[in-house]
Protein backbone atom coordinates (compact mmCIF):
# COMPACT_ATOMS: atom_id res chain seq x y z
CA UNK A 1 0.00 0.00 0.00
CA UNK A 2 1.44 3.39 -1.04
CA UNK A 3 1.63 6.19 1.47
CA UNK A 4 1.23 8.83 -1.21
CA UNK A 5 -0.77 8.18 -4.35
CA UNK A 6 -0.83 10.85 -7.04
CA UNK A 7 -3.41 10.26 -9.78
CA UNK A 8 -3.33 12.27 -13.01
CA UNK A 9 -2.68 15.54 -11.23
CA UNK A 10 -2.59 18.71 -13.28
CA UNK A 11 -1.82 22.23 -12.18
CA UNK A 12 -2.00 25.31 -14.34
CA UNK A 13 -0.94 28.85 -13.55
CA UNK A 14 -2.35 31.87 -15.24
CA UNK A 15 0.06 34.71 -15.95
CA UNK A 16 -1.99 37.46 -17.57
CA UNK A 17 -3.51 35.88 -20.64
CA UNK A 18 -1.00 33.03 -20.70
CA UNK A 19 -1.76 29.70 -19.05
CA UNK A 20 1.33 27.80 -17.92
CA UNK A 21 0.81 24.06 -17.52
CA UNK A 22 3.10 23.38 -14.55
CA UNK A 23 2.00 19.74 -14.15
CA UNK A 24 0.30 17.60 -16.78
CA UNK A 25 -1.61 14.58 -15.51
CA UNK A 26 1.23 13.42 -13.29
CA UNK A 27 0.80 10.05 -11.56
CA UNK A 28 3.15 8.71 -8.91
CA UNK A 29 3.07 6.43 -5.91
CA UNK A 30 5.42 6.85 -2.94
CA UNK A 31 5.87 4.24 -0.24
CA UNK A 32 6.49 4.99 3.41
CA UNK A 33 10.16 5.47 4.27
CA UNK A 34 11.30 6.31 0.76
CA UNK A 35 14.13 8.81 0.14
CA UNK A 36 12.85 10.17 -3.10
CA UNK A 37 14.33 12.87 -5.24
CA UNK A 38 12.28 14.79 -7.77
CA UNK A 39 14.73 16.12 -10.27
CA UNK A 40 14.52 18.19 -13.38
CA UNK A 41 15.47 21.53 -14.84
CA UNK A 42 14.03 24.82 -13.68
CA UNK A 43 10.36 25.12 -14.61
CA UNK A 44 9.87 21.38 -14.89
CA UNK A 45 7.26 21.36 -12.07
CA UNK A 46 9.31 20.01 -9.13
CA UNK A 47 8.29 22.71 -6.66
CA UNK A 48 4.69 22.60 -7.85
CA UNK A 49 4.54 18.86 -7.23
CA UNK A 50 6.02 19.29 -3.75
CA UNK A 51 3.57 22.09 -2.99
CA UNK A 52 0.65 19.92 -4.03
CA UNK A 53 1.81 16.97 -1.92
CA UNK A 54 2.40 19.42 0.93
CA UNK A 55 -1.19 20.74 0.71
CA UNK A 56 -0.02 24.30 0.26
CA UNK A 57 -1.30 24.61 -3.28
CA UNK A 58 -4.53 23.53 -4.96
CA UNK A 59 -5.00 20.79 -7.54
CA UNK A 60 -6.74 21.70 -10.80
CA UNK A 61 -7.56 18.11 -11.75
CA UNK A 62 -6.69 14.62 -10.56
CA UNK A 63 -6.25 13.61 -6.94
CA UNK A 64 -3.57 13.08 -4.35
CA UNK A 65 -4.16 10.54 -1.60
CA UNK A 66 -2.03 10.54 1.52
CA UNK A 67 -2.69 7.43 3.60
CA UNK A 68 -5.75 6.92 1.40
CA UNK A 69 -7.08 10.34 2.33
CA UNK A 70 -7.89 12.55 -0.69
CA UNK A 71 -6.47 16.01 -0.10
CA UNK A 72 -8.49 17.93 -2.66
CA UNK A 73 -11.60 17.49 -0.51
CA UNK A 74 -9.99 19.20 2.47
CA UNK A 75 -10.87 22.79 3.29
CA UNK A 76 -8.24 25.34 4.34
CA UNK A 77 -8.50 24.54 8.04
CA UNK A 78 -8.32 20.80 7.46
CA UNK A 79 -5.24 21.26 5.30
CA UNK A 80 -3.60 23.40 7.98
CA UNK A 81 -4.32 20.74 10.61
CA UNK A 82 -3.10 18.00 8.26
CA UNK A 83 0.16 19.81 7.61
CA UNK A 84 0.64 20.52 11.31
CA UNK A 85 0.23 16.86 12.25
CA UNK A 86 1.76 14.98 9.33
CA UNK A 87 4.16 17.04 7.26
CA UNK A 88 7.56 18.61 7.70
CA UNK A 89 9.10 21.15 5.37
CA UNK A 90 12.67 22.09 4.55
CA UNK A 91 13.24 25.11 2.36
CA UNK A 92 16.07 26.22 0.13
CA UNK A 93 16.42 29.50 2.06
CA UNK A 94 15.93 27.81 5.46
CA UNK A 95 13.21 30.33 6.42
CA UNK A 96 14.22 30.46 10.05
CA UNK A 97 12.87 33.16 12.33
CA UNK A 98 15.89 35.38 12.98
CA UNK A 99 14.72 36.69 16.37
CA UNK A 100 14.41 33.18 17.77
CA UNK A 101 17.25 30.97 18.96
CA UNK A 102 17.97 27.59 17.36
CA UNK A 103 16.04 25.97 20.20
CA UNK A 104 13.03 28.28 19.75
CA UNK A 105 13.03 27.84 15.97
CA UNK A 106 12.63 24.12 16.47
CA UNK A 107 10.40 24.03 19.54
CA UNK A 108 7.78 26.37 18.10
CA UNK A 109 6.61 23.57 15.79
CA UNK A 110 5.82 21.45 18.84
CA UNK A 111 4.12 24.37 20.57
CA UNK A 112 1.57 24.30 17.75
CA UNK A 113 0.67 20.77 18.84
CA UNK A 114 -0.88 19.86 22.14
CA UNK A 115 2.37 18.71 23.74
CA UNK A 116 3.42 19.34 27.36
CA UNK A 117 6.27 21.82 27.92
CA UNK A 118 8.73 19.29 29.36
CA UNK A 119 8.13 16.98 26.40
CA UNK A 120 8.76 19.89 24.00
CA UNK A 121 12.02 20.60 25.77
CA UNK A 122 13.16 16.99 25.74
CA UNK A 123 12.34 16.41 22.09
CA UNK A 124 13.85 19.69 20.93
CA UNK A 125 17.16 19.09 22.70
CA UNK A 126 17.19 15.54 21.39
CA UNK A 127 16.63 16.48 17.76
CA UNK A 128 19.15 19.33 17.91
CA UNK A 129 21.69 16.84 19.23
CA UNK A 130 20.79 14.46 16.42
CA UNK A 131 21.48 17.08 13.75
CA UNK A 132 24.78 18.03 15.39
CA UNK A 133 23.80 21.31 16.98
CA UNK A 134 24.29 20.37 20.60
CA UNK A 135 25.60 23.36 22.51
CA UNK A 136 24.31 25.82 19.93
CA UNK A 137 20.73 25.80 21.15
CA UNK A 138 20.76 29.43 22.25
CA UNK A 139 22.38 30.84 19.15
CA UNK A 140 20.33 32.87 16.76
CA UNK A 141 20.43 31.95 13.05
CA UNK A 142 22.58 34.97 12.17
CA UNK A 143 25.36 33.53 14.36
CA UNK A 144 25.32 30.21 12.49
CA UNK A 145 26.65 29.10 9.10
CA UNK A 146 24.37 28.21 6.19
CA UNK A 147 24.88 24.50 6.86
CA UNK A 148 24.07 24.94 10.52
CA UNK A 149 20.97 26.93 9.66
CA UNK A 150 19.80 24.17 7.34
CA UNK A 151 20.42 21.70 10.16
CA UNK A 152 18.05 23.73 12.31
CA UNK A 153 15.53 23.58 9.47
CA UNK A 154 15.94 19.79 9.33
CA UNK A 155 15.53 19.57 13.10
CA UNK A 156 12.44 21.76 12.83
CA UNK A 157 10.97 19.43 10.21
CA UNK A 158 11.88 16.28 12.15
CA UNK A 159 10.97 17.28 15.68
CA UNK A 160 7.30 16.42 15.44
CA UNK A 161 8.03 13.02 13.87
CA UNK A 162 6.06 13.69 10.70
CA UNK A 163 5.22 10.94 8.25
CA UNK A 164 6.57 12.94 5.32
CA UNK A 165 9.24 15.59 4.98
CA UNK A 166 9.18 17.70 1.86
CA UNK A 167 12.38 19.52 1.00
CA UNK A 168 12.50 22.03 -1.83
CA UNK A 169 16.09 22.22 -3.11
CA UNK A 170 17.51 21.85 0.41
CA UNK A 171 21.14 22.15 -0.68
CA UNK A 172 20.85 24.82 -3.36
CA UNK A 173 22.13 27.58 -1.09
CA UNK A 174 25.01 25.56 0.29
CA UNK A 175 28.48 24.76 -1.01
CA UNK A 176 28.94 21.21 -2.28
CA UNK A 177 30.69 19.94 0.85
CA UNK A 178 28.06 21.34 3.21
CA UNK A 179 25.32 20.22 0.82
CA UNK A 180 26.64 16.69 0.95
CA UNK A 181 26.73 16.79 4.75
CA UNK A 182 23.13 17.91 4.82
CA UNK A 183 22.12 15.11 2.46
CA UNK A 184 23.93 12.57 4.59
CA UNK A 185 22.10 13.91 7.60
CA UNK A 186 18.75 13.68 5.84
CA UNK A 187 19.54 10.17 4.72
CA UNK A 188 20.56 9.22 8.24
CA UNK A 189 17.30 10.57 9.63
CA UNK A 190 15.38 8.75 6.91
CA UNK A 191 17.00 5.49 7.89
CA UNK A 192 16.80 6.06 11.63
CA UNK A 193 13.20 7.31 11.87
CA UNK A 194 11.74 5.78 8.73
CA UNK A 195 10.42 9.19 7.71
CA UNK A 196 9.54 9.55 4.04
CA UNK A 197 11.72 12.25 2.45
CA UNK A 198 10.75 13.82 -0.85
CA UNK A 199 13.13 16.45 -2.06
CA UNK A 200 13.49 18.41 -5.24
CA UNK A 201 16.83 19.14 -6.84
CA UNK A 202 18.60 19.77 -10.09
CA UNK A 203 22.00 18.93 -8.61
CA UNK A 204 23.47 15.65 -9.87
CA UNK A 205 25.35 15.01 -6.62
CA UNK A 206 22.10 15.27 -4.67
CA UNK A 207 20.36 12.88 -7.06
CA UNK A 208 23.04 10.31 -6.31
CA UNK A 209 21.87 10.08 -2.71
CA UNK A 210 18.25 9.35 -3.58
CA UNK A 211 16.96 5.79 -3.28
CA UNK A 212 14.47 6.71 -5.96
CA UNK A 213 14.83 9.33 -8.65
CA UNK A 214 11.84 10.80 -10.44
CA UNK A 215 12.70 13.00 -13.39
CA UNK A 216 10.29 15.73 -14.41
CA UNK A 217 10.36 17.60 -17.67
CA UNK A 218 7.83 20.23 -18.76
CA UNK A 219 5.36 19.12 -16.12
CA UNK A 220 5.49 15.40 -16.94
CA UNK A 221 7.37 12.50 -15.40
CA UNK A 222 9.92 11.27 -17.91
CA UNK A 223 11.59 8.64 -15.76
CA UNK A 224 11.14 6.93 -12.41
CA UNK A 225 14.20 5.01 -11.28
CA UNK A 226 14.62 3.00 -8.07
CA UNK A 227 18.15 2.51 -6.77
CA UNK A 228 19.86 0.34 -4.21
Amino acid at each position, binding site marked *: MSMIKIEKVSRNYKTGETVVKALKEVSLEVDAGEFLSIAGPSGSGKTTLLNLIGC*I*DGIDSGEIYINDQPISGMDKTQKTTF*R*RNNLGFI*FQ*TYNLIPVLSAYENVS*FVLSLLDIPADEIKRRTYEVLKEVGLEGMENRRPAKLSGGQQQRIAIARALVKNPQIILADEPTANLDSKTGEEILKLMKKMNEKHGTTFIFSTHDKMVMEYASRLVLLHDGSIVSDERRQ
Partner: protein
Amino acid sequence: MKFILQLAMKNLSRYKRRTIITSVAIAFGLMMFIIVDSILRGAQVESVRNLRWYETASLRIYDSNYWEEHYFLPLESSIKQPDKVMDIVKAEGLTATERTTFAADMILYSKDFGEDGNMSVKITAIDPSTDFDVYRYPDTLIDGRFLEPGENDGIVIGSWFAEDIGAKVGYWVTFITQGNGGFYEAFDMQIVGIVNCPNPNVNRTLIMMDKSAADSYLGMDGAVTSIDIVLDEKANLNQSAADLQAKLDQAGLSNLQVLTWRDLAQDYIAMVEAKQGGSSMILFLVFIIAAVGVSNTMLMAMYERMRELGMMRAMGMRDRDILFSFLFEAGGIGMIGATVGIALGCLVNIYLVNSGINVGFMFRDMDIGFRIQSIMRGAWSLPTILKAFFSGILLSMVVALFPIRRALKLDIPTCLHHQ
Protein backbone atom coordinates in the same frame (compact mmCIF):
# COMPACT_ATOMS: atom_id res chain seq x y z
CA MET B 1 -0.53 31.52 22.78
CA LYS B 2 2.68 31.74 24.79
CA PHE B 3 4.74 31.29 21.64
CA ILE B 4 2.66 33.87 19.77
CA LEU B 5 3.26 36.44 22.51
CA GLN B 6 6.94 35.52 22.73
CA LEU B 7 7.35 35.88 18.97
CA ALA B 8 5.54 39.21 18.94
CA MET B 9 7.71 40.63 21.71
CA LYS B 10 10.92 39.40 20.09
CA ASN B 11 9.89 40.85 16.75
CA LEU B 12 9.49 44.22 18.45
CA SER B 13 13.22 44.33 18.98
CA ARG B 14 13.88 43.15 15.43
CA TYR B 15 13.54 46.54 13.78
CA LYS B 16 14.53 48.69 16.72
CA ARG B 17 14.83 51.93 14.81
CA ARG B 18 11.48 51.51 13.10
CA THR B 19 9.79 50.50 16.36
CA ILE B 20 11.30 53.51 18.12
CA ILE B 21 10.29 55.96 15.38
CA THR B 22 6.71 54.68 15.30
CA SER B 23 6.51 54.59 19.09
CA VAL B 24 7.89 58.12 19.36
CA ALA B 25 5.23 59.36 16.93
CA ILE B 26 2.50 57.73 19.01
CA ALA B 27 4.13 58.94 22.24
CA PHE B 28 4.27 62.52 20.97
CA GLY B 29 0.63 62.42 19.93
CA LEU B 30 -0.56 60.96 23.23
CA MET B 31 1.63 63.34 25.22
CA MET B 32 0.00 66.25 23.39
CA PHE B 33 -3.41 64.75 24.03
CA ILE B 34 -2.71 64.50 27.78
CA ILE B 35 -1.28 68.02 27.94
CA VAL B 36 -4.10 69.64 25.99
CA ASP B 37 -6.73 67.68 27.89
CA SER B 38 -5.10 68.65 31.18
CA ILE B 39 -4.98 72.35 30.28
CA LEU B 40 -8.57 72.34 29.05
CA ARG B 41 -9.71 70.41 32.09
CA GLY B 42 -7.80 72.72 34.45
CA ALA B 43 -9.15 75.75 32.64
CA GLN B 44 -12.66 74.40 32.98
CA VAL B 45 -12.31 73.72 36.69
CA GLU B 46 -10.93 77.20 37.30
CA SER B 47 -13.42 78.84 34.96
CA VAL B 48 -16.38 77.21 36.66
CA ARG B 49 -15.03 78.26 40.03
CA ASN B 50 -14.50 81.84 38.86
CA LEU B 51 -17.93 81.89 37.25
CA ARG B 52 -19.62 80.82 40.46
CA TRP B 53 -17.48 82.96 42.73
CA TYR B 54 -17.58 86.23 40.78
CA GLU B 55 -20.13 86.14 37.97
CA THR B 56 -23.19 83.96 38.29
CA ALA B 57 -23.23 82.43 41.79
CA SER B 58 -24.72 78.92 41.83
CA LEU B 59 -28.37 79.74 41.29
CA ARG B 60 -30.16 82.91 40.37
CA ILE B 61 -33.81 83.85 40.63
CA TYR B 62 -35.25 86.13 37.98
CA ASP B 63 -38.66 87.24 36.95
CA SER B 64 -39.67 84.94 34.07
CA ASN B 65 -39.86 87.86 31.63
CA TYR B 66 -36.44 89.15 32.63
CA TRP B 67 -34.48 86.15 31.32
CA GLU B 68 -36.11 86.36 27.91
CA GLU B 69 -34.87 89.93 27.54
CA HIS B 70 -31.86 89.83 29.80
CA TYR B 71 -29.54 91.28 27.14
CA PHE B 72 -31.49 94.57 27.55
CA LEU B 73 -31.34 94.46 31.38
CA PRO B 74 -35.06 95.31 31.70
CA LEU B 75 -35.81 96.92 35.08
CA GLU B 76 -39.55 96.57 34.61
CA SER B 77 -39.20 92.77 34.76
CA SER B 78 -37.77 92.77 38.25
CA ILE B 79 -38.61 90.83 41.40
CA LYS B 80 -41.22 92.93 43.17
CA GLN B 81 -41.18 91.17 46.53
CA PRO B 82 -37.54 90.29 47.18
CA ASP B 83 -38.05 90.04 50.95
CA LYS B 84 -40.62 87.29 50.50
CA VAL B 85 -38.30 85.43 48.15
CA MET B 86 -35.36 85.87 50.51
CA ASP B 87 -37.43 84.39 53.33
CA ILE B 88 -38.21 81.33 51.22
CA VAL B 89 -34.58 80.96 50.22
CA LYS B 90 -33.37 81.30 53.79
CA ALA B 91 -35.99 78.82 54.93
CA GLU B 92 -34.36 76.36 52.55
CA GLY B 93 -31.08 76.92 54.40
CA LEU B 94 -29.53 78.73 51.46
CA THR B 95 -27.37 81.85 51.42
CA ALA B 96 -28.49 84.57 49.01
CA THR B 97 -28.12 88.20 48.14
CA GLU B 98 -30.18 90.71 46.19
CA ARG B 99 -28.81 92.48 43.14
CA THR B 100 -30.00 94.97 40.59
CA THR B 101 -28.24 95.16 37.31
CA PHE B 102 -28.88 97.99 34.90
CA ALA B 103 -27.42 99.69 31.85
CA ALA B 104 -26.11 103.24 31.86
CA ASP B 105 -23.94 105.71 29.99
CA MET B 106 -20.83 106.62 31.92
CA ILE B 107 -19.41 110.09 31.44
CA LEU B 108 -15.73 110.67 32.10
CA TYR B 109 -14.33 114.12 32.75
CA SER B 110 -11.09 115.61 31.53
CA LYS B 111 -10.35 116.90 35.01
CA ASP B 112 -9.70 113.35 36.23
CA PHE B 113 -9.30 111.29 33.05
CA GLY B 114 -7.37 113.78 30.89
CA GLU B 115 -10.13 114.09 28.33
CA ASP B 116 -13.91 114.04 28.24
CA GLY B 117 -15.71 110.95 27.05
CA ASN B 118 -18.57 108.57 27.58
CA MET B 119 -19.24 104.87 27.22
CA SER B 120 -22.01 102.33 27.72
CA VAL B 121 -21.63 100.25 30.87
CA LYS B 122 -23.42 97.69 32.96
CA ILE B 123 -23.75 98.49 36.65
CA THR B 124 -24.40 95.93 39.33
CA ALA B 125 -25.98 97.23 42.47
CA ILE B 126 -25.19 95.03 45.45
CA ASP B 127 -26.12 94.73 49.06
CA PRO B 128 -22.71 94.99 50.76
CA SER B 129 -24.07 93.37 53.94
CA THR B 130 -24.97 90.11 52.15
CA ASP B 131 -23.18 90.11 48.80
CA PHE B 132 -19.88 88.89 50.16
CA ASP B 133 -21.63 85.82 51.63
CA VAL B 134 -22.38 84.79 48.05
CA TYR B 135 -19.53 86.28 46.01
CA ARG B 136 -15.88 86.37 46.91
CA TYR B 137 -14.83 89.91 46.16
CA PRO B 138 -13.21 90.79 49.52
CA ASP B 139 -9.97 88.99 48.59
CA THR B 140 -9.72 90.84 45.28
CA LEU B 141 -9.45 94.44 46.48
CA ILE B 142 -6.19 95.99 45.31
CA ASP B 143 -6.87 99.68 45.94
CA GLY B 144 -9.27 101.77 48.07
CA ARG B 145 -12.06 100.10 49.95
CA PHE B 146 -15.28 98.21 49.43
CA LEU B 147 -18.74 99.71 49.39
CA GLU B 148 -20.46 100.36 52.68
CA PRO B 149 -24.16 99.66 53.19
CA GLY B 150 -26.22 102.69 52.26
CA GLU B 151 -23.33 104.44 50.49
CA ASN B 152 -24.94 106.80 47.95
CA ASP B 153 -22.05 107.86 45.77
CA GLY B 154 -19.38 105.17 45.80
CA ILE B 155 -18.50 102.62 43.12
CA VAL B 156 -16.01 99.78 42.94
CA ILE B 157 -14.60 98.85 39.53
CA GLY B 158 -12.50 96.07 37.98
CA SER B 159 -8.75 96.66 37.61
CA TRP B 160 -8.62 96.01 33.84
CA PHE B 161 -11.56 98.34 33.38
CA ALA B 162 -9.76 100.92 35.49
CA GLU B 163 -6.62 100.50 33.39
CA ASP B 164 -8.57 100.81 30.16
CA ILE B 165 -10.18 104.12 31.13
CA GLY B 166 -7.25 105.37 33.19
CA ALA B 167 -9.30 105.45 36.41
CA LYS B 168 -7.96 105.73 39.93
CA VAL B 169 -9.54 105.72 43.36
CA GLY B 170 -11.05 109.12 44.07
CA TYR B 171 -12.00 109.92 40.46
CA TRP B 172 -15.57 111.02 39.77
CA VAL B 173 -17.85 109.81 36.98
CA THR B 174 -21.43 110.50 36.03
CA PHE B 175 -23.97 107.87 35.06
CA ILE B 176 -27.02 108.59 32.96
CA THR B 177 -29.65 105.90 32.89
CA GLN B 178 -33.34 105.22 32.49
CA GLY B 179 -35.04 104.35 35.73
CA ASN B 180 -37.85 101.88 36.31
CA GLY B 181 -40.71 103.39 34.28
CA GLY B 182 -38.50 105.06 31.67
CA PHE B 183 -37.53 108.35 33.34
CA TYR B 184 -33.97 109.59 32.91
CA GLU B 185 -31.71 109.91 35.86
CA ALA B 186 -28.14 111.15 36.23
CA PHE B 187 -25.97 110.67 39.27
CA ASP B 188 -22.37 111.36 40.16
CA MET B 189 -20.30 108.58 41.70
CA GLN B 190 -16.79 108.42 43.06
CA ILE B 191 -14.52 105.44 42.54
CA VAL B 192 -13.83 104.17 46.07
CA GLY B 193 -12.19 100.84 45.29
CA ILE B 194 -10.56 98.79 42.55
CA VAL B 195 -10.71 95.01 42.52
CA ASN B 196 -8.53 92.62 40.58
CA CYS B 197 -10.95 89.80 39.94
CA PRO B 198 -9.63 86.42 38.67
CA ASN B 199 -12.60 86.29 36.31
CA PRO B 200 -11.45 88.35 33.29
CA ASN B 201 -15.00 89.00 32.10
CA VAL B 202 -15.80 90.62 35.41
CA ASN B 203 -12.44 92.36 35.71
CA ARG B 204 -12.89 93.87 32.28
CA THR B 205 -16.36 95.35 32.91
CA LEU B 206 -17.16 95.42 36.64
CA ILE B 207 -18.88 98.47 38.14
CA MET B 208 -20.51 97.89 41.54
CA MET B 209 -22.59 100.32 43.57
CA ASP B 210 -24.81 100.06 46.62
CA LYS B 211 -28.26 98.56 46.06
CA SER B 212 -30.15 101.04 48.21
CA ALA B 213 -28.62 103.94 46.25
CA ALA B 214 -29.60 102.26 42.99
CA ASP B 215 -33.08 101.66 44.39
CA SER B 216 -33.42 105.36 45.04
CA TYR B 217 -31.94 106.53 41.71
CA LEU B 218 -33.87 104.03 39.59
CA GLY B 219 -37.18 104.15 41.45
CA MET B 220 -37.20 100.46 42.12
CA ASP B 221 -39.43 100.65 45.21
CA GLY B 222 -37.55 97.81 46.83
CA ALA B 223 -37.58 95.61 43.72
CA VAL B 224 -34.41 93.93 42.52
CA THR B 225 -33.53 92.28 39.24
CA SER B 226 -32.13 89.08 40.72
CA ILE B 227 -31.56 87.09 43.85
CA ASP B 228 -28.26 85.25 43.69
CA ILE B 229 -27.71 82.09 45.71
CA VAL B 230 -24.56 80.22 46.61
CA LEU B 231 -24.57 76.43 46.96
CA ASP B 232 -21.98 74.07 48.27
CA GLU B 233 -19.60 72.92 45.48
CA LYS B 234 -20.85 69.37 45.81
CA ALA B 235 -24.56 70.22 45.96
CA ASN B 236 -26.83 68.83 43.27
CA LEU B 237 -27.39 71.93 41.20
CA ASN B 238 -30.43 70.86 39.22
CA GLN B 239 -32.11 69.25 42.20
CA SER B 240 -31.58 72.37 44.32
CA ALA B 241 -32.96 74.56 41.52
CA ALA B 242 -36.00 72.29 41.11
CA ASP B 243 -36.67 72.21 44.87
CA LEU B 244 -36.45 75.98 45.11
CA GLN B 245 -38.66 76.47 42.08
CA ALA B 246 -41.26 74.22 43.70
CA LYS B 247 -41.16 76.29 46.89
CA LEU B 248 -41.58 79.52 44.91
CA ASP B 249 -44.51 78.05 43.00
CA GLN B 250 -46.11 76.92 46.27
CA ALA B 251 -45.76 80.45 47.62
CA GLY B 252 -47.59 81.87 44.59
CA LEU B 253 -44.40 83.18 43.01
CA SER B 254 -44.58 81.15 39.84
CA ASN B 255 -43.70 84.27 37.85
CA LEU B 256 -40.17 83.75 39.11
CA GLN B 257 -37.76 81.24 37.67
CA VAL B 258 -34.67 79.64 39.15
CA LEU B 259 -31.71 79.33 36.81
CA THR B 260 -28.48 77.48 37.43
CA TRP B 261 -25.06 78.88 36.61
CA ARG B 262 -25.08 76.58 33.58
CA ASP B 263 -28.16 78.36 32.25
CA LEU B 264 -26.59 81.72 32.95
CA ALA B 265 -23.23 80.92 31.37
CA GLN B 266 -24.47 79.45 28.13
CA ASP B 267 -21.71 81.20 26.19
CA TYR B 268 -19.13 79.49 28.35
CA ILE B 269 -20.80 76.07 28.08
CA ALA B 270 -20.94 76.36 24.29
CA MET B 271 -17.28 77.35 24.20
CA VAL B 272 -16.28 74.41 26.42
CA GLU B 273 -18.17 71.99 24.21
CA ALA B 274 -16.38 73.39 21.17
CA LYS B 275 -13.02 73.02 22.91
CA GLN B 276 -13.85 69.46 23.92
CA GLY B 277 -14.34 68.88 20.21
CA GLY B 278 -10.79 70.22 19.81
CA SER B 279 -9.54 67.72 22.36
CA SER B 280 -11.24 64.93 20.44
CA MET B 281 -9.60 66.28 17.31
CA ILE B 282 -6.19 65.80 18.91
CA LEU B 283 -7.10 62.21 19.72
CA PHE B 284 -8.16 61.83 16.12
CA LEU B 285 -4.80 63.21 14.98
CA VAL B 286 -3.11 60.67 17.23
CA PHE B 287 -5.20 58.06 15.48
CA ILE B 288 -3.96 59.31 12.11
CA ILE B 289 -0.35 59.22 13.34
CA ALA B 290 -0.86 55.72 14.68
CA ALA B 291 -2.65 54.67 11.51
CA VAL B 292 0.06 55.91 9.18
CA GLY B 293 3.01 54.94 11.38
CA VAL B 294 1.90 51.54 12.60
CA SER B 295 0.24 50.57 9.36
CA ASN B 296 3.40 51.42 7.44
CA THR B 297 5.61 49.64 9.98
CA MET B 298 3.47 46.52 9.88
CA LEU B 299 3.20 46.61 6.11
CA MET B 300 6.99 46.75 5.79
CA ALA B 301 7.36 44.03 8.43
CA MET B 302 4.89 41.91 6.51
CA TYR B 303 6.75 42.19 3.25
CA GLU B 304 10.11 41.61 4.89
CA ARG B 305 8.83 38.53 6.69
CA MET B 306 6.74 37.13 3.89
CA ARG B 307 8.80 33.93 3.59
CA GLU B 308 8.70 33.40 7.35
CA LEU B 309 4.98 33.88 7.14
CA GLY B 310 4.80 31.24 4.41
CA MET B 311 6.98 28.90 6.46
CA MET B 312 4.79 29.26 9.56
CA ARG B 313 1.65 28.65 7.54
CA ALA B 314 3.25 25.64 5.80
CA MET B 315 4.23 24.25 9.21
CA GLY B 316 0.56 24.30 10.18
CA MET B 317 0.33 27.53 12.13
CA ARG B 318 -3.18 28.86 11.88
CA ASP B 319 -3.75 32.19 10.12
CA ARG B 320 -5.56 33.33 13.23
CA ASP B 321 -2.44 32.71 15.35
CA ILE B 322 -0.23 34.54 12.84
CA LEU B 323 -2.71 37.40 12.84
CA PHE B 324 -2.58 37.55 16.64
CA SER B 325 1.21 37.48 16.59
CA PHE B 326 1.36 40.53 14.33
CA LEU B 327 -1.45 42.24 16.23
CA PHE B 328 0.38 41.75 19.52
CA GLU B 329 3.49 43.15 17.89
CA ALA B 330 1.56 46.22 16.74
CA GLY B 331 -0.02 46.42 20.19
CA GLY B 332 3.48 46.29 21.65
CA ILE B 333 4.51 49.28 19.53
CA GLY B 334 1.36 51.04 20.70
CA MET B 335 2.10 50.10 24.31
CA ILE B 336 5.66 51.45 24.14
CA GLY B 337 4.38 54.65 22.51
CA ALA B 338 1.52 54.97 24.99
CA THR B 339 3.74 54.34 28.01
CA VAL B 340 6.36 56.84 26.89
CA GLY B 341 3.70 59.33 25.83
CA ILE B 342 1.88 59.06 29.14
CA ALA B 343 5.13 59.29 31.11
CA LEU B 344 6.15 62.45 29.23
CA GLY B 345 2.61 63.83 29.40
CA CYS B 346 2.51 63.26 33.16
CA LEU B 347 5.91 64.88 33.64
CA VAL B 348 4.77 67.97 31.78
CA ASN B 349 1.49 67.82 33.65
CA ILE B 350 3.22 67.95 37.04
CA TYR B 351 4.52 71.36 36.03
CA LEU B 352 1.18 72.41 34.56
CA VAL B 353 -0.77 71.41 37.67
CA ASN B 354 1.66 72.99 40.13
CA SER B 355 2.89 76.06 38.28
CA GLY B 356 0.73 76.48 35.20
CA ILE B 357 1.33 78.71 32.21
CA ASN B 358 0.98 82.45 32.47
CA VAL B 359 -1.32 83.46 29.63
CA GLY B 360 -2.22 86.85 31.11
CA PHE B 361 -0.52 88.62 28.20
CA MET B 362 -2.96 86.89 25.88
CA PHE B 363 -6.14 87.00 27.95
CA ARG B 364 -5.70 90.67 28.88
CA ASP B 365 -6.84 91.84 25.47
CA MET B 366 -8.51 88.75 24.12
CA ASP B 367 -11.59 86.96 25.37
CA ILE B 368 -11.39 83.26 24.55
CA GLY B 369 -14.29 82.39 26.83
CA PHE B 370 -12.37 80.89 29.74
CA ARG B 371 -12.84 82.73 33.02
CA ILE B 372 -9.12 82.75 33.72
CA GLN B 373 -7.15 85.91 34.10
CA SER B 374 -3.53 84.83 33.90
CA ILE B 375 -2.35 81.39 35.04
CA MET B 376 -3.74 78.37 33.19
CA ARG B 377 -3.21 75.31 35.31
CA GLY B 378 -3.56 71.69 34.34
CA ALA B 379 -5.68 69.10 36.07
CA TRP B 380 -5.13 65.39 36.55
CA SER B 381 -7.56 63.00 34.96
CA LEU B 382 -7.10 59.28 35.43
CA PRO B 383 -9.77 58.48 32.80
CA THR B 384 -7.82 60.56 30.25
CA ILE B 385 -4.57 58.75 31.05
CA LEU B 386 -6.29 55.36 30.79
CA LYS B 387 -8.03 56.47 27.60
CA ALA B 388 -4.68 57.54 26.12
CA PHE B 389 -3.01 54.28 27.13
CA PHE B 390 -5.65 51.92 25.84
CA SER B 391 -6.47 53.91 22.72
CA GLY B 392 -2.73 53.96 21.86
CA ILE B 393 -2.61 50.19 22.03
CA LEU B 394 -6.00 49.54 20.49
CA LEU B 395 -5.56 51.96 17.61
CA SER B 396 -2.16 50.46 16.78
CA MET B 397 -3.70 47.01 16.67
CA VAL B 398 -6.68 48.10 14.61
CA VAL B 399 -4.61 49.83 11.93
CA ALA B 400 -2.23 46.86 11.77
CA LEU B 401 -5.14 44.59 10.97
CA PHE B 402 -5.41 45.68 7.34
CA PRO B 403 -1.85 44.94 6.12
CA ILE B 404 -1.82 41.66 8.06
CA ARG B 405 -5.09 40.47 6.58
CA ARG B 406 -3.85 41.48 3.16
CA ALA B 407 -0.72 39.38 3.56
CA LEU B 408 -2.66 36.42 4.91
CA LYS B 409 -4.83 36.44 1.81
CA LEU B 410 -1.80 35.51 -0.30
CA ASP B 411 -1.36 31.80 -0.92
CA ILE B 412 1.49 29.95 0.81
CA PRO B 413 3.69 29.34 -2.28
CA THR B 414 3.55 33.06 -3.09
CA CYS B 415 4.66 33.84 0.46
CA LEU B 416 7.45 31.25 0.33
CA HIS B 417 8.85 32.57 -2.92
CA HIS B 418 8.48 36.23 -2.07
CA GLN B 419 11.62 38.19 -2.97
